[in-house]
C-alpha cells in the first residue's frame, strides 16, 4: 500500500461517515485530486483482492468503509453491535429520582444531583424510560417527568408500588408527603 492509501484507510475508518473527496484532500496537502482518487481505488482493490470483510463504498456524500453485506447476519447473531448497554451512573441516578419523586421537574432533579441533567433527560426520554407527564406550577411552567411502562418492564415490575421502599434511606428522596412523621 502506498503511504497515501494507508492514510486514507485510517481516515475513512476513523471518520465512520461518508467523507467527501475535498475533505480527503486535507490529509496530504501535497496530494492532487488524481492521486487521492488513485489511492481510493488502490484501497478498493486491496480489499477486493484480499477477500476482506469490509469494502470502500462510494455514496452520494463521499466515500465510506462499510462491512460487506454477507457478514451482516453473523455480526447481528453474535450481537456484537446491538448489545444491551448499561446505563451510566448519571442516568441511573436520574432515573431513580424520577422513579421515586414523579412527577418531577428538571430543577428539582438538578438540585438533588448537583449537576445539569439536560443530556441525561434527553437520553432517558429517547430510550423511552421517562416521558413528560405534565407541567409544574412555577415560573415558566416547567416540564414534569415521570417514568413509563417501559421503565416498569425493564425492572420487571407490575406497578410503581413495587419499587423498593426507601425507608432506610434519608428523607431526601422520599415524597414530601411521607416525611411528616406519619400524619
Amino acid at each position: 500500500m502506498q503511504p497515501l492509501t494507508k492514510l486514507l484507510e485510517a481516515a475513512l475508518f476513523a471518520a465512520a461517515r461518508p467523507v467527501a473527496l475535498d475533505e480527503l484532500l486535507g490529509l496530504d496537502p501535497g496530494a492532487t485530486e488524481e492521486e487521492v482518487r488513485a489511492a481510493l481505488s488502490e484501497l478498493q482493490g486491496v480489499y477486493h483482492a484480499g477477500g476482506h470483510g469490509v469494502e470502500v463504498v462510494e455514496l452520494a456524500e463521499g466515500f465510506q468503509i462499510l462491512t460487506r453485506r454477507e457478514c451482516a447476519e453473523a455480526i447481528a447473531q453474535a450481537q456484537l453491535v446491538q448489545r444491551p448497554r448499561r446505563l451510566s451512573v448519571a442516568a441511573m441516578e436520574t432515573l431513580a429520582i424520577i422513579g421515586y419523586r414523579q412527577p418531577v421537574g428538571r430543577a428539582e432533579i438538578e438540585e438533588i444531583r448537583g449537576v445539569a441533567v439536560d443530556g441525561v433527560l434527553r437520553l432517558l426520554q429517547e430510550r423511552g424510560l421517562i416521558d413528560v407527564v405534565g407541567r409544574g406550577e412555577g415560573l415558566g411552567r416547567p416540564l414534569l417527568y415521570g417514568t413509563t411502562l417501559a421503565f416498569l418492564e425493564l425492572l420487571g415490575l407490575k406497578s410503581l408500588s413495587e419499587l423498593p421502599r426507601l425507608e432506610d434511606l434519608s428523607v431526601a428522596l422520599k415524597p414530601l408527603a411521607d416525611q411528616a412523621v406519619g400524619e
Partner: protein
Amino acid sequence: MALPTAADRPFVIQLEEFSGPLDLLLHLIREQEIEITDIPIGRIADQFLAAIHVLRLNQAAEYLEMAAYLLRIKILMLLPQPLDAEEWEDPRAELVRRLLEYEQIREVVDWMLRRAGERADRFPRGVVPEPPELLLPPAEVSVDQLLQAAERLVELLPARVMHRVVPRPLDTEGATQRIQEVLRERERVELAELLGERPTITDIISVLIALLELARLGAVGLSQADGFGPILITRATAHEAA
C-alpha cells in the same frame, strides 16, 4: 523561584496549575534539589507560604491546612531535643511518608499520561449514527441497581449540603411560638393542621423539633391513636407542666 507568577490572574486558574498542596510542595523540593528525607523544614515552610500567597492559593482550605502543618513541624523542630537521641522522633517523619507516597503516585501519573497520549493517537472507528430503529439497544437495569443509585445519591447529599447556603434556616423559635399560640386558643390540634397546606421541608423539621422540645419540657402532650394515624398535640395540664 520559577513559579508561575500571576498575581493578576484569577484564582481558579492558579488552582489548576497544581493538583494540590503536595504537588506544590514537591515542586518546591524538586526545584531546589532537596532530599525528601531531609527537608530543611523552616525554609520550605516559608517558601510554601510565600508561594500560596503569590499564586493566590491561600484562599483554598487545603493549602492553608498544609501551611499550618508545615509551621507546626517547623516549631517542633525548634524545640530542644531530648538527650537520649533514641527517644526523639523526627517531626518530619509523617510528612516524608506522605511525600514519598505522593511522589510515587506522580510517577505513575506520568506513565499513565504517556500511555493515554499514545492511545489517543490511535482512533477507533467512529461511532456510526445507526438507523433510528437500531439507535437504542435495550438498556440493562435491575431494581437492585436502581436502589443502589438511590442510595448513592443519598450518600452524596449531606456532603453537598455542608457547602450550600441555606436560605431559610430552621426556625424552631417561630414554630414554638406558633404552637403555643394555637394551644392557647384550643386544647388540641392535629399535626397536619399545624403544618398547613403546603409545608416546606424546613417548616416540617422546625415544627417537629419544636414539638419534641415542648414535649420534653412537658409543655405539650403528643398522642397517636393508631399506627400511621393522625398525631394529636394537646395542651398540657398545669399539673403535667409542673
